[in-house]
């Protein structure tokens, strides 16, 4: 499918480049295909409109306009090709060398590049031609003098960026010499962006040549050049359109194609941004992309039906109640789900952990109720925040209504605090904004007092100083605390934390876990914590939901799930966690195969292909999330597992053969 899409993109790129290709072909073949000599005219046949004999008419000197157009392309092409060749070769070589050598060579060359790039190119060209006179060689000289610099800058940036990369370190360790490193591993990647730039540069050079000719400083008459032809056509602007239009159209077409091609190659297709101005299309039904999978959708494990939910004794204090949540993204012609039929809930003063490996859909499931996914995500199901009169359905809210929930009743702490805080604003400005959003602010000083209070609550010493600092001046742990302060601004009922401690040092991580536990205990806050780390979860959570392939495969109270896991995947995950006290060299028990299948890729259990207990029924029938012990109440927060075999069921335990997997 990607191949077909790639092919279509390629065709469109080729289409965009057509004027450029035409320009090159015509330029090369002009002497062959031109019907007449562009410099020889018949004065008696001046200013003839287009006719079969002169398809583009003749100019005031009776010269064939079509032939002049074709030869004009040739001159433009000659200059463009020469300038491009010189600039590309010299620029890439100089830039790559400076980038690789580093040190004072690099500093000197960078400085020169800076100066040349900051010179007005056309002015340099005008001045050079002004002192040297017109002509093709002088045009090439005038344009080459400054055209190399952008290539040098691009190549230098690329090479300097790679110079200290682990990739080159690895090659050096393998014993690769300089020549091999530069020639085989540095130049090709440096050349690629230079070529992209060259595609727009073609337009730039063509435009420069035409402009210089127009000012009478390019190619001298009687040679045909597009800019030159436009001056000659100027007096006939209103009377002989065939003189004033074709050269202008030709220049515009070539330059436009070059610009379009360059932008296409550099940026690719445009996508809408995350920022949402209108109500997203929530209500879109999630469809499996291909008919084969449509069957899977219909055989969906039955989500807890309303009567069952009504029987939940926990309903009265569940801060967040998610039922049958599905999230899908457009894929090819249809939509592909990444989260399918998830139900979870979290009570006041409790922490629910969504555990899973990367790509399992755990973060998507946690953020979906709050509209924090990409705009093309479609969310279905139900997510109710709060209880009683304050209960609020979150799915299908408008952006305006959402703003009264997010930051007020729900606080979110994201992963990777380095990119989640705006680098140009101080920590204080972030928290101030959050405080003002919730309406707790007032006069500047009042707001700042609240801000400092929040920072102190998040365990930051000296909040006044931290408030004045920028994100990059803080350590990862402090930034994470700042995020918590922002999330606390609205005194929320619910805190959602996505991998709050990953990428932090263990000592810092331990302190943050203590902070989160305190917030739960002292403020009675409910939390949904997303994590890949079972060890972290075991220190923090009250209940756990294990996510695999976009579905919850096992959930329940922390102690039960960890000490007596039912689902083979949960057990596999637990086995992979290093244990203290194991003898050095003890092998981990591992799961074969790799994760990655989404809920729409398999008809049965998503784990079937890796499962040591797989049975024939597992492949065709999706298991329902149910209590492993028969007869237990079907509560959402009780221990439940989505496995047909329920290995922890006492009756079956003896039947299985034992042995290492």
């Amino acid at each position, binding site marked *: 499918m990607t191949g077909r899409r790639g092919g279509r993109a390629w065709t469109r790129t080729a289409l965009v480049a057509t004027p450029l290709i035409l320009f090159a072909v015509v330029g090369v073949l002009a002497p062959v295909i031109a019907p007449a000599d562009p410099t020889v005219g018949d004065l008696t046949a001046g200013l003839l409109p287009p006719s079969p004999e002169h398809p583009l008419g003749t100019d005031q000197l009776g010269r064939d306009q079509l032939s002049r157009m074709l030869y004009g392309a040739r001159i433009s092409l000659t200059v463009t090709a020469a300038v491009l060749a010189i600039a590309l070769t010299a620029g890439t070589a100089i830039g790559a060398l400076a980038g690789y050598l580093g040190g004072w060579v690099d500093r000197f060359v960078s400085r020169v590049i800076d100066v040349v790039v900051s010179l*007005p190119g056309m002015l340099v060209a*005008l001045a050079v031609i002004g002192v040297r006179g017109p002509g093709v060689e002088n045009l090439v000289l005038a344009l080459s003098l400054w055209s190399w610099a952008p290539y040098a800058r691009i190549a230098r940036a690329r090479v300097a960026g790679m110079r200290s990369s682990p990739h080159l370190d690895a090659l050096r360790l393998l014993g690769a010499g300089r020549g091999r490193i530069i020639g085989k591993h540095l130049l090709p990647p440096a050349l690629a962006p230079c070529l*992209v*730039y060259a595609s727009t540069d073609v337009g730039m050079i063509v435009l420069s040549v035409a402009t210089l000719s127009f000012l009478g400083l390019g190619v001298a008459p009687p040679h045909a050049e597009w800019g030159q032809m436009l001056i000659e056509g100027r007096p006939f602007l209103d009377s002989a359109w065939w003189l004033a239009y074709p050269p*202008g159209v030709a220049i515009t077409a070539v330059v436009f194609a070059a610009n379009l091609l360059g932008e296409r190659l550099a940026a690719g297709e445009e996508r809408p941004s995350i*920022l949402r101005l209108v109500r997203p299309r929530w209500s879109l039904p999630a469809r499996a992309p291909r008919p084969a999978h449509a069957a899977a959708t219909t055989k969906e494990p039955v989500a807890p039906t309303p009567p069952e939910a009504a029987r939940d004794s926990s309903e009265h204090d569940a801060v967040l109640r998610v039922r049958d949540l599905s999230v899908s993204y457009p894929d090819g012609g249809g939509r592909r789900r990444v989260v399918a039929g998830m139900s979870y809930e979290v009570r006041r003063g409790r922490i629910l952990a969504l555990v899973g490996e990367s790509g399992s859909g755990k973060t998507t499931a946690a953020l979906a109720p709050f509209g924090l996914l990409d705009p093309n995500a479609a969310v279905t199901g139900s997510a109710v925040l709060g209880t009683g009169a304050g209960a609020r359905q979150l799915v299908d809210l408008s952006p305006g209504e959402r703003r009264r929930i997010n930051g007020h009743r729900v606080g979110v702490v994201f992963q990777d605090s380095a990119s989640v805080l*705006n680098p*140009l604003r101080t920590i204080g400005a972030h928290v101030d904004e959050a405080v003002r959003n919730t309406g707790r602010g007032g006069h500047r000083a009042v707001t700042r007092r609240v801000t400092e209070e929040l920072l102190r609550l998040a365990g930051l010493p000296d909040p006044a100083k931290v408030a004045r600092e*920028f994100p990059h001046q803080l350590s990862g742990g402090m930034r994470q605390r700042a995020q918590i302060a922002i999330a606390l601004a609205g005194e929320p009922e619910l805190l959602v934390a996505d991998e709050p401690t990953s990428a932090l040092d263990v000592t810092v991580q331990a302190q943050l876990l203590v902070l989160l536990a305190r917030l739960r205990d002292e403020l009675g806050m409910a939390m949904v914590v997303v994590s890949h780390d079972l060890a972290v979860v075991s220190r923090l959570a009250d209940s756990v939901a294990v996510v695999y392939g976009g579905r919850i495969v096992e959930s329940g109270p922390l102690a039960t799930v960890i000490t007596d896991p039912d689902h083979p995947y949960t057990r596999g995950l637990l086995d992979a966690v290093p244990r203290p006290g194991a003898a050095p060299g003890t092998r981990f028990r591992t799961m074969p195969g790799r994760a990655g299948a989404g809920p729409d890729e398999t008809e049965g259990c998503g784990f079937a292909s890796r499962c040591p207990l797989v049975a024939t029924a597992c492949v065709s029938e999706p298991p329902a999330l149910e209590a492993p012990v028969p007869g237990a109440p079907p509560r959402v927060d009780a221990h439940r597992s989505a496995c047909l075999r329920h290995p922890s069921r006492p009756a079956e335990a003896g039947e299985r053969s034992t042995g290492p997997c």
Partner: protein
Amino acid sequence: MRSRGRLVTAGGYLLRWAVDVFGVLLAMSLGVFALVLLARGDAAAMLAATRAGRPATPEQIEAVRVELGLDDPAAVRYLRWLADVCTGDFGLSLRTNTPVGPEVADRLGVTLGLVAGSTVVALVIGVSVGVAGAVLRRGLLRGTLRLAALLITSVPAFWLSYLLVLVLALRLRVVPTSGMAGFSTWVMPMAVLGLPVAGVLSRVVAVTLREALDRPYVRAAQARGSGPLSIVLRDGLPNAAGPILSVAGFGIGSLLVGAVVVEQIFGWPGIGAYFVHAAGARDVPALQAGTLVMGGGFILANRCADVLQGLIDPRSRRDRIPPGKSPSGRGRPLRERVGGFTARSRRGTT
């Protein structure tokens, strides 16, 4: 290892910036002076001929040569020339035998007026169309704006002038074809000069603002309940400011150069027209003066954009890169990833 460099205070940053600009201007003056060395033909012979009104005798040429000090070493001539330039003395025009300085000063006002008007056109249209391109979700309108912006930057300025003259002046007769008297004569030059820069600027604003709006901090702002306007103004535009400012600086600077063509077409007595006449006659002192004035203005516009960026972004004022690891790409790529067309605008338009 976190990259935490020492921050330079804004004052120190400004001082370093001033030194830097001075250095670039000095380097440019060297290049401008070097034009003499590139020149074909003998300046002394040209000036002597201009004075005599006919091809000069060897004695006359020698006299001019001594008068101009052309036999001195190049370094001496450069220093003398630089000293003269600093006092506003650009020498005598080889074409008219009159001082270049006062002539340039007279024409500067016209050009600056034109550039100022075009700057307003470029900034207002460029930024508003760009912001629309970044936040609009309707594919069709966004695509149209994008193509229009690319098209307007692709049309050669001189041909665009023709088309405007044809439609506005000859057909509709709403504005005169050329000259400068009254607002109506300003419409076409300002449009021809400003619109292509607006086109480039709108693309840069659209691309970089969109990229800034795709950053995780926008999601975080949504999570704390901030509205779209606040997000665009506080998180979007400031973070996109780097490329936008540098392209705007470059665009405004290139308006000075673009004025060369526009003044020529609409018959405005500005520096641009003077420059073209000088180039046609290989009048080196006049060319030097024109290059120095327009080039200097261009560089100043550029560097002002850089200094603004430094004042907005505390990270770009960072003194030195901390040891060990190169600065992580995280903070920087916005500027570097804007490739192709946008990078092309670093070159000015004509």
